[in-house]
Structure formats: C-alpha cells, structure tokens
C-alpha cells in the first residue's frame, strides 16, 4: 500500500459516481424504524425504473435529525425526506425527475443543519461506513500517510499540542500534553485505547461516530500510536451498541486487507494492530483505570491515580487513552493543519463539539457546533425549543457527572470553562433539554439512583454515600424530610465529591449540587417543619431553628 494506491481507489470511486445519489440513513436510530426496508425498496424502485446507471442508493451513517427518521436525502435535488416508509420508495424515485413526492420533507437549509460545522461528523451521513473506499474518497488515510512518511513522532505530538485539541471524553485534558507524556514514558511496549464505553444516559455521539465513520477513528488511533510509539490498540466498546461493533469489525478487517493497519504500514517500519474489546455494561468502565482493568478481563474497578495510565497503564505499560470523538478529530487536524483547527472555537476550547440533543425539544438528534456557540443557539434556534409551546426550564449537560443549567443562563457559550463555572461539565456531549413540567428534585434523584447502581463498590464514600444521598432525595420527594435532612444531603455531597476514589464518585453529587444551586426553592417547597429539631418543642407553627437564628 502506497499513496498511489489510495489515489487510484479515490479516482475509481469518483469516476463511478452517478448523477443522483440517494443517501439513506443507516444509523441505529433510523434502523429501528425500518431504514433497512426503506433502502431495499429504494434499490428495487431504481431497478424497476431502469435507473441503475443514474441513481446510486447509498447507505450512510447518521444524518443527524434522529427524531424524524428514517431519513433519505436526494442529491443534487437537495430534498430531505423524513419519516420515510418502504412504501414511499417509488414516489421518491418518481420525484427525481421533477414534481414533488407527497412525502413529508425537512428543510436541509434549516438552522438545525446550517449552524453545524462538521469536523468529526463531516463524513457522517455522507459516506458509506461499510466501505473503506468511501472513506478514502473523502481523503481518508491520507493524513496517516503524510504522518508516517513526512513527520517524526515528535512533530506529530507538537502538531497536536499546537491544535489545542482537548479530550472530548469529559474532563477536557489537553490531548497533545497527554500524547507527549506517553511518548516520553520509557517502555518498549505501549498501548493505545479508544474509550468507546459511552455510558452517559442520554448521550449517543460516540455511537454515531462509530456507526457513521469508523475509519476516522482507526486512522486517528494509528496516528496517535505512531506519535507515542505504540503498536497495539484496543477499542473498548459497549455491548449495547451492536451496530457500532459490527461496523468496527468490518472496518478493521477492511483496513487490514488494504494494509493501512498491520505491519509496515505505507511501507514504513510502523506496525499497528487494533483489537476490539466488548464491554459488558458498567458505567464505571468509562473511568480510565477501571476501563483498563476491564480490558485485562477483570472486574472494572478503578485504582488510585497516580500512577497515571500514561506512565503505568494496561499490563503496567504506558498507555494512551482517548475517547472516540477525540480520535475522530485527529485525521482532520493532520489533513488541514494545527492552525486551521486552532482557528475554530474559543481561546481555550478549540474546534467543535458534538452534542446529542434530546429530551423535551422539537429537533432531537446529533449536532456539531464550534466551541463557544451559545446554548440558546443550540436549543432554541437549532433545537426549535420545547415542543407544544412549553418553556425550557433547564439544559442538562455531562450526564450523571454534570449539572443542570437553568434557562436564565442560556446565553452561556458552550466551552469547558463556562460550563464548569455553572457547576456543570462539558461531559461527553449529552444534552438533555427539560421543560417546565420537569421536577428538578426528581431529576437529581434520577441521576443519584444511576450513580448508586453504577458505583463499583470499592470505595466507601461512593458506595455508601450515594445510597444515603439517594435516600435523602427520596425522603425529600416524599415530603418527609426536614431542613436537617437537606443539610445532611449537602454535607454528603461535599464529602463524596472530595473523598471518592474515582471520577464516578467525585462527580456523582454534581446533578444534586447544581439543582440545589439553581432550583433550591423546589427542594425547600418539599421540606416539612422540623417539629422536634434543635430547640424544637413540637409546635408546627414555629419557625425552623435554622431560620430563627
């Protein structure tokens, strides 16, 4: 495999292009609404109309407007059909020659699409994720070639530092710095792990990337492996994502066959193999030390850091762990240069971020926007606001580790620092919109229950503390709690946050703390007078002691 082979594949693919392309979304959301049947019927209809030479029916990855699926887009007509059924196929084909099909359509130029900037999702919904040729047509694996042939590992790390990319898994650690640490760590054997254990409930960005553009992740991993000196990579993917798993397996097989994975890639001395590890359902395995334990076939419990994985990780070797979206950002950075990437976004948060927009919002789906885009633009303009004329009450980001941002802060730009200031986190990119019918104490309880169930049980604050916090939240919701209980809850939040062993426990109190900060009145409205509290004499009319002071 040399560059010329890539170019040849690309040329051949481009030459075979037909006049009309019908892109059918084949991501998990649309697949659950019979997208497969739609595609088959479209192919039949094309055959029946004798248009095989003019029309290509292409299965593609996520086309983003998930709530309206299955989606089909006709190009160059620029018609986006929504909620397509297999029976609609003949009408869609008929409409290719002018006229209109009596099928609901969405405006491909609406704000939902126009405000997006595709870096990670540039190929999503465009290329066929099951064909490596389709990825090569859009410049795939050229960055890897360039890196292997023209750059030293040190250059590669420096470019990454210069791009300003920060980890998309949640904490936002500078990727270049991480690469540099692993590269410098002594050790003959090093590993790369792609964290695809997307566990936040309400997040499906990584799933979409893996289903829509698996090769970009593989290419990103290969570039990272070259930079840090690793020759073995693992992708740790959730068992709940069968489609992503099968597409990854296919992608790895194709990449091996073509020689962009394996030994002596692009006739360089660089070897790199990637293996899949299928998770088995444990949220805590998103934590890197727990994830490594799981890759080693053990119980996925975290261990204290330091030592960090960069020094001592998988099997005790220096290990680089990045998440799916981070790796997917890598090829475009080397294709277009660090300056290009650094020119997008804000001062401290570069590039774009993919969000999974869901909850009480009109347009649910996948969006990719430049860092710094105001929340209001995302939920009101792009998301279309809450359905049925309801008011948006809060936006939850960061899942069980994040917080609820109230409507009055909707003008906050989305970047690591701004969200942190509001007691939330960027997280992996789940964004759940809540309307005014949402009970915020119940939301806090929902997330606490999640963390309680997902606590691995190793350290006491998380194992026993989440149970107590959950019970206190239930007590509040049942209107049985007093001010003293609320104080206990707040004290526990602080304790569990500061003493837990890993990120799960350290962030478990976040949803509770952020709702306490912005929606305290909802908690207080549920409290009962503390009849027998400090100084209490059983008189219900008496002011609680805390207020009397």
């Amino acid at each position: 495999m040399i560059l010329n082979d890539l170019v040849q594949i690309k040329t051949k693919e481009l030459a075979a292009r037909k006049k009309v392309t019908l892109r059918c979304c084949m991501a998990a959301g649309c697949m659950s609404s019979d997208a497969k049947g739609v595609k088959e019927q479209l192919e039949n209809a094309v055959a029946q109309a004798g248009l095989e030479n003019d029309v290509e029916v292409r299965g593609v990855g996520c086309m983003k407007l998930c709530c309206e699926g299955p989606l089909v887009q006709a190009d160059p007509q620029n018609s986006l059909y929504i909620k397509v059924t297999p029976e609609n196929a003949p009408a869609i084909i008929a409409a290719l020659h002018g006229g209109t099909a009596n099928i609901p359509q969405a405006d491909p130029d609406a704000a939902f699409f126009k405000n997006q900037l595709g870096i990670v999702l540039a190929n999503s919904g465009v290329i066929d994720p099951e064909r490596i040729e389709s990825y090569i047509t859009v410049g795939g694996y050229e960055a890897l070639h360039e890196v292997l042939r023209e750059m030293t590992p040190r250059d590669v790390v420096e470019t990454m530092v210069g791009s300003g990319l920060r980890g998309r898994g949640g904490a936002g650690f500078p990727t270049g710095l991480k690469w540099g640490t692993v590269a410098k760590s002594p050790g003959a054997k090093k590993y790369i792990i792609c964290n695809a254990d997307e566990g936040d409930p309400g997040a499906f960005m990584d799933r979409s990337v893996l289903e829509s553009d698996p090769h970009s992740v593989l290419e990103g991993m290969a570039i990272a492996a070259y930079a840090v000196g690793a020759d073995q990579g693992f992708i740790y993917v959730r068992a709940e994502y069968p489609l992503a798993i099968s597409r990854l397996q296919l992608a790895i097989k194709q990449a091996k066959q073509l020689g962009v994975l394996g030994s002596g890639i692009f006739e360089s001395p660089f070897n790199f193999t990637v293996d899949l590890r299928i998770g088995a359902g444990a949220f805590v395995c998103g934590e890197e030390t727990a994830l490594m334990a799981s890759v080693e076939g053990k119980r996925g419990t975290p261990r204290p850091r330091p030592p960090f994985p960069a020094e001592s990780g998988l099997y005790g070797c220096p290990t680089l762990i990045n998440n799916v979206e981070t790796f997917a950002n890598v090829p475009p950075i080397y294709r277009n240069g660090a300056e290009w990437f650094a020119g997008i976004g804000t001062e401290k948060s570069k590039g774009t971020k993919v969000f999974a927009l869901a909850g009480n919002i009109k347009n649910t789906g996948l969006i990719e926007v430049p860092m710094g885009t105001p929340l209001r633009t995302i939920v009101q303009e792009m998301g279309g606001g809450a359905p049925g004329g309801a008011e948006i009450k809060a936006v939850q980001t960061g899942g069980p580790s994040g917080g609820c941002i109230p409507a009055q802060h909707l003008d906050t730009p989305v970047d690591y620092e701004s969200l942190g200031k509001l007691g939330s986190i960027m997280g992996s990119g789940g964004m759940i919109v809540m309307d005014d019918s949402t009970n915020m104490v119940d939301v806090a309880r929902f997330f606490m229950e999640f963390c309680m169930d997902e606590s691995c049980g190793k350290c006491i604050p998380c194992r026993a503390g989440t149970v107590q916090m959950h019970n206190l939240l239930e007590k509040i919701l049942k209107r049985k709690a007093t001010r003293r209980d609320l104080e206990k809850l707040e004290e526990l939040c602080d304790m569990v946050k500061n003493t837990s062993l890993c990120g799960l426990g350290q962030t478990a109190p976040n949803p509770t703390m952020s709702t306490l900060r912005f929606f305290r009145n909802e908690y207080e409205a549920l409290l009962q007078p503390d009849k027998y509290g400090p100084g209490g004499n059983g008189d219900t009319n008496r002011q609680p002691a805390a207020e009397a002071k």
Partner: protein
Amino acid sequence: MSFLDLDEFLIDLVDLVDIVYSPVVDMKDYPGSVDVCLIEGAICNEDNLELLHKIRQRTKVLVSFGDCAVTANVPAIRNQLGLGNTESVLQRAYIENAQDNPCLPKADGIVPQLLERVMPVHEVVHVEHFLPGCPPPAAHIKALVSQMLSGVKPNLEGKQIKFG
C-alpha cells in the same frame, strides 16, 4: 443498672439534682420544664414515640443513653426483616416460641402498636448529647454528668466512647 455503678458519686449527685422521672420514680406523667433527660432504649412502639415527643417538648437537654438509644442496637435487628416485620416478629415471639397458651397480645389502649421500624432516638427528635455503651460504663456517665453540672459543653472523646 450501670447508673448504680456510679457508687459514691450517686450520693454527691443527689445533692445536685432532683430526679423527677424514671422507671423507678412514682410519677404517672413526664413533668414539665425538665433540665436534663437521659433516654434509654430504642424507639420501638407507639408508646415510645409518644413519650419521646413529650420528653422533647418538656426538656432542655436530651442525652441518648446507651447503645439502644444511640444505635437502636439489638431491638433493631428486626428491621432486617424489612417493612411489615411486626406481624412476623409477634408471631415468632408469642405463637411459635410460646411455652403455653400461645396468643397475640391484644388490648386496645393498653398494648402499644409496634412501629414498622425500630429507630434510634436521634432519628425521631433532636438529641443534644450521646453516651453510647452497652451499658455505658459508670466512668463515662460520671464524666458526662460532671461536665454538664459544671456548665461546660459535654464532649467525650477517644477512650470515653464505647459501643457494645
């Protein structure tokens, strides 16, 4: 009983305090304006609950006295049977383990209802001080009572705390 282990300190104590209510003081109702109450036992039934509420209302300083009051201890082992354990507890005690004449005690207004859950005292009302121990050693009682009498805020530490 451990209170009696205070020995000669009891004599000093008599001069300093009036004992107005106790299982061995002949008083039908808990009096008003009590300064200090040492509460023994876990809260197991409706009577305990009612009395505790009354005590809290009429007392300045409550001391949870002994493991049963502080932790609910052995009486609370029935909580492990889950909610609705009262039936099975009574069944076991008065029917299965009865030596003769098995029958459930029932007399409205006389036999108090068991609570669903046995609770330590401070789960029901605010408690100022805690003196655990099964029983609390006399030395600890003396330390606590002396501190209270001399007007300092009682504070037991390290060796002065004992469970079991």
